[in-house]
């Protein structure tokens, strides 16, 4: 029997949560000062040396980001357990475009949705009478406005940047889905999608969960995601650490700053083919920002990385024919580029 199973069931959820919360706060606080003390005083490293900067960034950030991830994933999973994709479909079924696109984008952010379910979700939506464009708004918003990214941006940059990110992501999803819908893309959807008949009764995967079950889901999800992404995390932190230590301050202001008209385009061009999750990209984002990359360019880069991923596109190929798939990528990327330029202008 594990430690957790020894606690009486009635209070297990609460006891575990409180213990975990206390441990979290403690570790977070210790992480804030430990490395300064250890590296600078203990090992006598020079705070201004590049190697010191890199090492400090690496250890401090690994722990900080791991802790933030645990918190964010847990909270988001528990909150999302109150929502389900079946209910989203019920809400969107038969809605016309325009309103439907807006709702779909918003629901895309809060509905728990794994990209591996993109195909059955797509089929399910169409079968329920959700217009293709509206379904696409959902499929764009879901990965683009990533809950981990929201949490990370909030803790690193504050609520204004986070609000911009959410707003921008929603706008791109709404407009892109609407545009694609207007293009009359029915003929570019694989025929079997329209031929699938829904035989069974639909069950709501969010119904009937107890609070303890939700807590358990939260903890499982933390373990699952961390297990999956820790390589990406280390790579992202490693890159961030190197940039932090070796790239001169204001480097990006000089070469990719407001004076350079191609900054956003390059950022998106690099970002689209890159595959990383939101967590892995954050330390990189943090380091780039410290070296002077404008926030608009930075957000565009981040959105390009997380919104479009090769695995997801490969999956979507099952339901979307190449012309529509290409249009999907093009419209989304264009939206991101526009957002990048817009916010560089606004924030300058």
């Amino acid at each position: 029997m594990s430690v957790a199973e020894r606690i009486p069931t009635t209070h297990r959820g609460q006891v575990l949560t409180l213990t975990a919360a206390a441990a979290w706060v403690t570790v977070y606080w210790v992480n804030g000062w430990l490395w300064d003390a250890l590296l600078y005083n203990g090992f006598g490293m020079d705070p201004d040396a590049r190697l010191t900067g890199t090492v400090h960034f690496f250890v401090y950030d690994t722990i900080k980001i791991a802790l933030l991830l645990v918190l964010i994933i847990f909270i988001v999973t528990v909150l999302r357990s109150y929502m389900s994709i079946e209910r989203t479909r019920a809400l969107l079924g038969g809605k016309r475009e325009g309103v439907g696109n807006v709702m779909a984008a918003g629901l895309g952010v809060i509905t728990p949705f794994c990209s591996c379910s993109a195909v059955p979700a797509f089929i399910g939506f169409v079968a329920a009478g959700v217009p293709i464009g509206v379904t696409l708004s959902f499929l764009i918003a879901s990965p683009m406005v990533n809950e981990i990214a929201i949490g990370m941006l909030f803790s690193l940059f504050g609520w204004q940047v986070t609000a911009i990110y959410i707003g921008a992501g929603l706008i791109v999803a709404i407009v892109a889905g609407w545009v694609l819908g207007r293009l009359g893309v029915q003929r570019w959807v694989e025929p079997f999608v329209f031929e699938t008949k829904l035989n069974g009764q639909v069950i709501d995967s969010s119904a009937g969960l107890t609070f303890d079950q939700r807590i358990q889901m939260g903890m499982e999800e933390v373990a699952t995601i961390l297990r999956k992404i820790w390589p990406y995390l280390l790579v992202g932190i490693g890159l961030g650490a190197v940039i932090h230590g070796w790239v001169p301050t204001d480097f990006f202001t000089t070469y990719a700053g407001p004076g350079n008209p191609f900054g956003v385009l390059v950022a998106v061009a690099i970002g689209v083919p890159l595959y990383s999750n939101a967590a892995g990209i954050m330390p990189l984002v943090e380091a780039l920002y410290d070296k002077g990359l404008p926030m608009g360019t930075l957000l565009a880069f981040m959105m390009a990385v997380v919104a479009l991923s090769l695995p997801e596109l490969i999956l979507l190929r099952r339901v979307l024919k190449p012309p529509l798939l290409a249009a999907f990528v093009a419209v989304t990327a264009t939206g991101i580029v526009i957002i990048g330029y817009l916010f560089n202008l606004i924030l300058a």
Partner: protein
Amino acid sequence: MIIKVLGPGCTNCKNLERVTRQAVDGLGVDATIEKVTDYPTIAGYGVMATPALVVDEKLVLSGRVPTAAQVRELLAPLAR
């Protein structure tokens, strides 16, 4: 009982199959467990979030991987 595990083959689907086998063994009932990976068929059951579990053509679970004990609770009343 004819049990079908619905999913394209991701780790969650394999976990659900494993957990279902454990539950069936635990119950000691006579049941066959099939894997369904074909998307149109999966969607036909009304499933939008894999993995999912279908027992005798009735959808009983979708969207998550429960524990073996929870699957046992689900299957017990259906085992005739």
